[in-house]
């Protein structure tokens, strides 16, 4: 059964993700207030005409912080997925192109990376280099490398068995040439789907790491830390937790829907399910 090419998830996901990207880009040029501007006298204001989403415990404008936080979430998500692709795809292709020893090694390598959750890696890196956004990117990227290596290897192996690849090999093209010319284009759709899903996961991980104090350091706003700051004010100003929470949920939802939609489009027979 074939679905139509533009599905509801694709549209909804694209709209939500597009809005996120727009807000992030807008924050480069304009925010209602400087997101780091502290004004203690105006703290814990409810949403109103001056501050559309209210102010936090230091009197900072919540909307401005959310906007800059969006940029940060997208940036860290993009960086960690890009690094994951750069590391994971060659690793996976290597495994697929050289069956036997290499195949095993690449698989075990991915297993090893899988064994370390992002939080653990981030704690380790923080102990070594001190806290910072770089740790969050590296920790999430490492997990992405493992996932993408696994996906690439699986998908590439399938392609390797196809006749046109066999023919190309018979005509004397080396393993890297085959990977580049035939395999990569054939699995690009799968990778795009996987990358989108990982992007959503990365935003969630980044928020989690910032919440634990392992990600972006203050005063740079981040959604995760806004949640952490809001925690002790839950009885007095519950909206302080609702807004960043909603921002995280909507972003993850948008990217997940986009991933679903892309999968329907690129891979109508659901050959491979994304790993999350």
């Amino acid at each position, binding site marked *: 059964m074939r679905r139509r090419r533009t599905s509801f998830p694709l549209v909804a996901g694209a709209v939500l993700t597009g809005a996120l990207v727009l807000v992030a880009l807008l924050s480069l040029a304009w925010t209602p207030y400087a997101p780091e*501007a502290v004004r*203690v006298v105006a703290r814990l204001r409810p949403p109103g005409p001056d501050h559309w989403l209210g102010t936090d415990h*230091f009197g900072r404008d919540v909307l401005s912080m959310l906007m800059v936080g969006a940029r940060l979430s997208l940036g860290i998500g993009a960086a960690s997925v890009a690094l994951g692709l750069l590391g994971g795809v060659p690793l996976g292709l290597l495994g697929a192109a050289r069956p036997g020893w290499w195949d095993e090694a690449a698989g075990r390598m991915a297993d090893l990376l899988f064994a370390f959750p992002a939080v653990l890696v981030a704690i380790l890196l923080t102990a070594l280099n001190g806290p910072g956004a770089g740790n969050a990117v590296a920790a999430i990227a490492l997990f992405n490398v493992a996932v993408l290596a696994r996906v690439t290897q699986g998908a590439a192996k399938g392609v390797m068995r196809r006749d046109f690849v066999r023919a190309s090999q018979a005509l004397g093209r080396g393993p890297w040439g085959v990977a580049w010319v035939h395999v990569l284009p054939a699995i690009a759709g799968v990778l795009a789907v996987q990358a989108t899903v990982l992007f959503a996961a990365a935003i969630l991980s980044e928020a989690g790491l910032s919440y634990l104090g392992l990600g972006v*350091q*203050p*005063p740079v706003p981040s959604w995760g830390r806004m949640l952490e700051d809001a*925690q002790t*004010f*839950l009885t007095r100003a519950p909206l302080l937790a609702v807004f960043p929470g909603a921002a995280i949920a909507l972003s993850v939802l948008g990217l997940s829907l986009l991933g679903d939609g892309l999968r329907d489009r690129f891979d109508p027979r659901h050959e491979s399910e994304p790993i999350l």
Partner: protein
Amino acid sequence: MGGMGKAAVAAAALLLAAWPVGGWAQGHSGLVVGMQLEPPHLDPTAGAAGAIDEVTYANLFEPLTRIDAAGAVVPGLAERWTVSDDGLTYTFTLRPGARFHDGSVCDSADVKFSLDRARGPQSVNAQKAYFAAIDTVETPDPRTVVVRLSRPDGLFLFHMGQGDAVIVAQETADTNKQKPIGTGPFKLDRWAAGDRVELVRNPDYDGPKPALERVTFRFISDPAAQVAALLSGDVDTFPQFGTYEALDQFRKDPRFAVLDGTSEGETLLVINNARKPFDDVRVRRAIGHAIDRTTLIDGAMFGTAKPIGSHFPPHRPEYVDLTGLSAYAPAKARALLAEAGYKDGFDAVLRLPPPIYARRSGELIAAMLAEVGIRLRIENVEWAAWLERTFKGRDFDLTLVAHTEPLDIGIYARPDYYFNYRSDRFNATEDELSRTLDPARRVALLQQEQRIVAEDAVNGFLFQLPVVTVQKAGVTGMWPNRPLQANDVTGVSWK
């Protein structure tokens, strides 16, 4: 499996603890004390962590003298003492019935062992300086201890009342970290790591029996969980309650009592005086003028704190108000920076330990210093990392922490302290102070010390850390003030 086992143990512990306490029921003989940090171990003679004393002081272990709720020196293990006219010989008489928890008698030999151990070459005591003036310890008979000093020490009796100076037995000294054996009115029942320490009344204690039969110290680091534990009745009293924004709620609730006390915790923006550009006094003064204490106290502490201008608590009689020396004046701060050659400011790292006062103050101060051109990068770290790199390693630009030891302005004379501050003028004053017994002269010298560190702008002097206890309305006898780091529950009872 391990998790299941732990959960089962925790559940059993909860049942046990709840049995005598019974949630909101009043008039019982148990007490649950909330603490933010768990002690790393339970030997006050072998660690600087305040949480050790907060569990053990006066409850498990006793020093020769004791510090009472008002900060005065009162008899402890020694029921009385005499001081020679030259201030060099202290003769202590021990309580006749004092016994350790293992049943052995606590006599002068134990005192001699404890004092010699604390000042000896193998000592791991966090406050070795307290014992530095001791020349010899003699034991003419089992109940008498004669301590001879090499120089007069005006604070000797005060120091001998600290947790670092508690008396331990030779046989158990090495295992006190896990199995504390003291002479106090309570003894250790069990320690569920990560959760609680439980003490039970010591039936063989020779002094007055405490009203409580069982005391549980529960460790709750999360601010929201602290509030929840109080509201649900799981915790009876929470000294050093740190969630200042929740205080209003407790003050209005008749089920609770909020005690506002004075503390010894000078909260400082600690400056590494050896590191450029902070080695220039003009830069340090500029930092002082860039900080608006009123906004800081309002923003970080919700108004619950007193500003300080030097390293001294405002509630003490020797206090001088020096906040004027570092009054908020951003224009002056910019001028001072320009004079020092930093017209465009500079970059530095502000490392913040976990307490909420530090994290919040740090963020506000970073915003304030940015106004005068000092761009701070904030690094939030855990206590272990802070102790290792900042306090011991002295590898930092700026950090922010409250110094809670009582009467500790003498730390500015320590050559190896992490401030990296050296001042002949201060050292000379401290030297004279340590030899002075005349009370009037001591006051003058202490005031001079406050002035020197304020004029040298050694650190950013922010505020006195408030001590707020939130507890059920029926609890009486908790110390409202904090003359030293302790939760002395020996006098606590229920109304």
